[in-house]
Structure formats: C-alpha cells, structure tokens
C-alpha cells in the first residue's frame, strides 16, 4: 500500500524507508509506526550489510598483527575514526576515542579526572537539571569521592536552562560544567556555544552529552569550543555498544588513563609501564572493532542524505505533530522550549501515560512511556512520567496522523 503522505517535502522518504527492513512489519496486526527513536534508531541496509561484510571479509584483531587481515581491519577502523573526526570537525583523528557509548564516555572522563586528582574539596561541578541519569550519576560519584560539590543548573517551566541562574552559579570554584546538546526527555536544544563561552570565562571545562544531537544536527566541536563531546552509535543509525568521546588534545594528553590493559601501553615492565599516546591510551583491550568500523558506515549514510535536510524534515514532522496533537482535549506538552528537536513529551489530562502507551502499542504505535531515565525532570514538573514521541529521518507526517487516530481512540476508551 502506498502512503501518499510519504511524499514528504524535503526527503524522498519512500526511498529512505526501503533502506530500513525492520519498518516493513506489522505489530498487533497494524503497520508499525516507530516513534521511539530517542531510545534507539533503526538501522539502514548500509549498516546491516557493513556488519556482515566486516565478519565475512576482514575480521581480525587490530593494531597487532603484521598479517593481511589484521592490517585491513586496522586500516578500516582508523578510516572510520577519520570519518568521525571530519564529521564532528575535530582537528585531529586521535581526538576521537572509541568507547562503548555516551555513558561510557562520561564515565571515562569522570574516572580519569578523579585519577588525575583534578578535583578537591571546595571545587564545584555544575550539572543541568535537564540531564539523563547517565550524565548525573558519574559526576555525583566523582564529587562523592573527591569532596567536590555538585550543583544543579535550574530549568524553567518551558524546559529551558535558566541562563541568569547559570551565570550566577559559575564561579572561580567551578571546575566542570556539563549538559546535553539536546534533551532526551523534552527535546530542548541547549545553547551550547554560549554556555561554553560562559564556562570558559569562569575557567571551567565543558562536557557535552550529544547522544540526542548526533542523529538530528550537524556537530562542529571546534565552533562549539567544548572540551568534551560524547555520543553513541546506536542513536544515530549505527550499531549498539559503540560510541565516541571527543576531547581537546591537551586535556586528553594530560588526563590519566581510566582503564589499564593491552593496546593502551607503550612498554610494560613490572617496575614501570608507560602509556601509549592518544587515542590508544584510552582504548584498553580489544575494541568493538566491527562497531567502530560500522559507525563510519552509519555516518556515510547520514552524510549522503545530508544532516541539514534531515533536520528540516524532522522540523516539519515536529511542527505537524505539535499542531495535530493540540487537537486532543486536555493535551499537555511537557517542555515547550523555543529551540527543540527530536522528541515531544506529553500527557493527556486525567490519563496515565502507561495506559495510553499500552493501547497505542495495541494499534502498532511504538512510543516510550515513563520517566525516560530523567527522574529529576519528572520531579520538577511533579509528574510520574510522560509519553514521548521521538522522530527519525524515516518518519512521515502520515505516521503522525496515524498516531493521532490511535491517540483519539485510546482517549475515548480511557475517558
């Protein structure tokens, strides 16, 4: 069946959807509508095939063997690093460190900062109130272990960071400021450049959680001037278990390694071990070779379509969704930032998000319900959780209309 709404203005979504085999299935007898992209995105054939190709042709351990396959795998991995470097406009490929994902990248920096004795009592770490648990807990642990203080940058009722309060919190004691580029729970886009400039004026480092930004927007780490930037492969059409930490060269060079093992050393003896240079110092053990290589394939896929066009298409989806969803009586949007991308969080008056989510699932609509691993945000709005529709490049306004039909049906059943 041809859906006329697939003829979207900006992207040839029909052609794009052909690249995503998983989307062509029925759930509970209805064609799947996948609106849980903020949790993870589906994978295009380019990515699925690259995984098979890797294991069918060049699988081997990297950076060790002189043999043919090992060299091929090493070259492929380093080429992928290079692609990612160019994609995020980092100055050097060795500023791109492969990790297990955003959470791992955050833990890497927080543990390395502790090992490097960079924090002491009286120092402060500022964390925004918009954060995912994974960008709260590692810094909490760092503060507990060093005696530093964790302070929270407040948000307003629209779900935006309150810049005056942020400025007031910054001081000579601030060592690190961390916040996300785009909020997973509310879709807020934060003013990264301005916040970074203010943090630097106070002499603090900036760590940006870019997990939600990578699939939706072009990233330029040098223009943003951030000290660290992290994102995951799987939220940007790539594989799970692989992600990236970008860091400024001098900072990465000075930080102590957070894990010891093979690959990360220059020489080892029982008296003294010297560490390898960047990026290997932070890549102990056999890396997720296939994931790292295939992450490059996902980036090629994104760049062939163009992130500008993807962003425009997704803006059209969000504005269509916001307009249509407002038709529902009692609709309450949670987070109404002026700059937003990716996700729409909402509640319907008198209805529990879980009930609505279960009924939508019966109608083939995949949405997320709950606190989205951001309990402090739910506490701030004094709600148990939300429903969240989050969009990807393969979604269509027609799918939003189908979600609307399903929402209206669910509301009439539950009221």
């Amino acid at each position: 069946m041809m859906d006329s709404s697939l003829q979207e203005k900006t992207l040839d979504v029909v052609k794009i959807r052909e690249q995503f085999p998983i989307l062509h299935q029925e759930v509970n007898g209805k064609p799947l509508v996948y609106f849980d992209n903020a949790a993870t995105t589906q994978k295009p054939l380019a990515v699925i095939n690259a995984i098979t190709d890797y294991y069918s042709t060049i699988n081997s351990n990297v950076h060790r063997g002189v043999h043919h396959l090992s060299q091929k795998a090493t070259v492929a991995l380093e080429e992928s690093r290079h692609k990612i470097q160019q994609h995020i406009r980092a100055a050097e490929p060795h500023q791109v460190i492969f990790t297990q994902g955003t959470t791992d990248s955050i833990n890497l920096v927080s543990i390395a900062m502790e090992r490097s004795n960079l924090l002491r009592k009286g120092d402060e770490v500022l964390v925004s109130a918009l954060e995912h648990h994974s960008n709260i807990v590692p810094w909490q642990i760092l503060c507990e272990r060093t005696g530093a203080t964790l302070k929270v940058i407040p948000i307003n009722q629209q779900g935006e960071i309150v810049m005056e309060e942020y400025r007031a919190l910054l001081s000579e004691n601030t060592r690190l400021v961390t916040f996300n580029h785009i909020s997973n729970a509310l879709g807020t886009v934060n003013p990264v450049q301005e916040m970074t400039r203010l943090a630097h004026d106070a002499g603090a480092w900036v760590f940006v959680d870019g997990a939600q930004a990578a699939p939706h927007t072009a990233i330029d780490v040098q223009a943003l001037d951030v000290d660290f930037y992290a994102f995951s492969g799987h939220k940007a059409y790539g594989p799970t278990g692989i992600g990236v930490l970008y860091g400024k060269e001098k900072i990465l060079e000075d930080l102590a390694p957070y894990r010891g093992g093979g690959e990360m050393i220059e020489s080892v003896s029982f008296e003294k071990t010297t560490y390898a240079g960047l990026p290997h110092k932070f890549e102990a053990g056999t890396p997720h070779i296939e994931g790292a290589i295939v992450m490059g394939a996902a980036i090629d896929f994104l760049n062939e379509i163009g992130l500008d066009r993807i962003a425009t298409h997704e803006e059209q989806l969000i504005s269509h969704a916001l307009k249509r969803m407002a038709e529902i009586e009692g609709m309450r949007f949670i987070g109404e930032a002026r700059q937003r991308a990716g996700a729409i969080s909402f509640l319907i008056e008198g209805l529990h998000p879980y009930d609505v989510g279960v009924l939508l699932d019966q109608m083939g609509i995949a949405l997320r319900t709950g606190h989205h691993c951001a309990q402090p945000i739910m506490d701030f709005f004094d709600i148990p959780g939300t429903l969240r529709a989050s969009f990807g490049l393969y979604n269509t306004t027609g799918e939003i209309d189908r979600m609307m039909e399903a929402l209206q049906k669910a509301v009439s059943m539950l009221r």
Partner: protein
Amino acid sequence: MSIQDTQREIVDEFGMFSDWMEKYEYLIELGKSLPLIDEAYKQDENLIKGCQSQVWLHAEDNGEKVVFTADSDAILTKGLIALMIRVLSNHPAQKIVEADMSFIDEIGLKEHLSPTRANGLASMIKQMKYYALALQAR
C-alpha cells in the same frame, strides 16, 4: 468457587471478545470497578515500585482465608489487578501459593507477564504469593 473454576470462568469471558479493543475495554471497566484499598494501606511499604505505574497491594488474613485489596494509578493495571484479586483473593494461603496462573496466556494477556513490563502481572502475582506465604507462616 475454586481458583481453577474462577480461572475457567475468566477464560470463557475473554473467549467472547472478538478483538483486542473489547478485551481492553473490559479491562478498563474492571479497573474502574476495583474496590479501592483502604487509604491507610496506601503506604510506601505496600507499594510495588516500578517505572511505569504504581501498585499498592495489601493482604489480610481473616482466619482461614487471605483477602487482597489493591490500587494503582493506571487504569489498565487496576483492571489486571482486579482479575488477579478475583482469582486469588478469599482462598486459603496454601492454595494461593500453589496456584497455577497459566490462564493468563489463554486470555491473550501474556505480554503483560513480560519481565520487561515493570509492574507487570509477574511481579504482582509474585507479591501476592509472597504475602500468602508470609501469612501462612505466622
């Protein structure tokens, strides 16, 4: 009516529904009719915690039988609880502990047994059996 008879009765009731909507409309109706737990028992210690919906469950031993009351903030969860209470409440603790709950599969609500559904039926049933076991031991 024995636990098994009640289960058979429920399986028959669900057998009459022709589609998922009727089934869920029935669950919603059951949820709305669930006699509320006494507010005094709606305490944190009676809460089965999860990230999706909250369930308060209270068990009382009236001498021979265990009586359950419960509540939830989500209506479908309440409907599921109402079914479980209809099956397990007002029976001797030993019978509750031994009850085979595989009828849930037969009525097409197996997806709610999935351990990934926080506060799904699985944790509810486990908690009910645990209460029965505790009351039996006293």
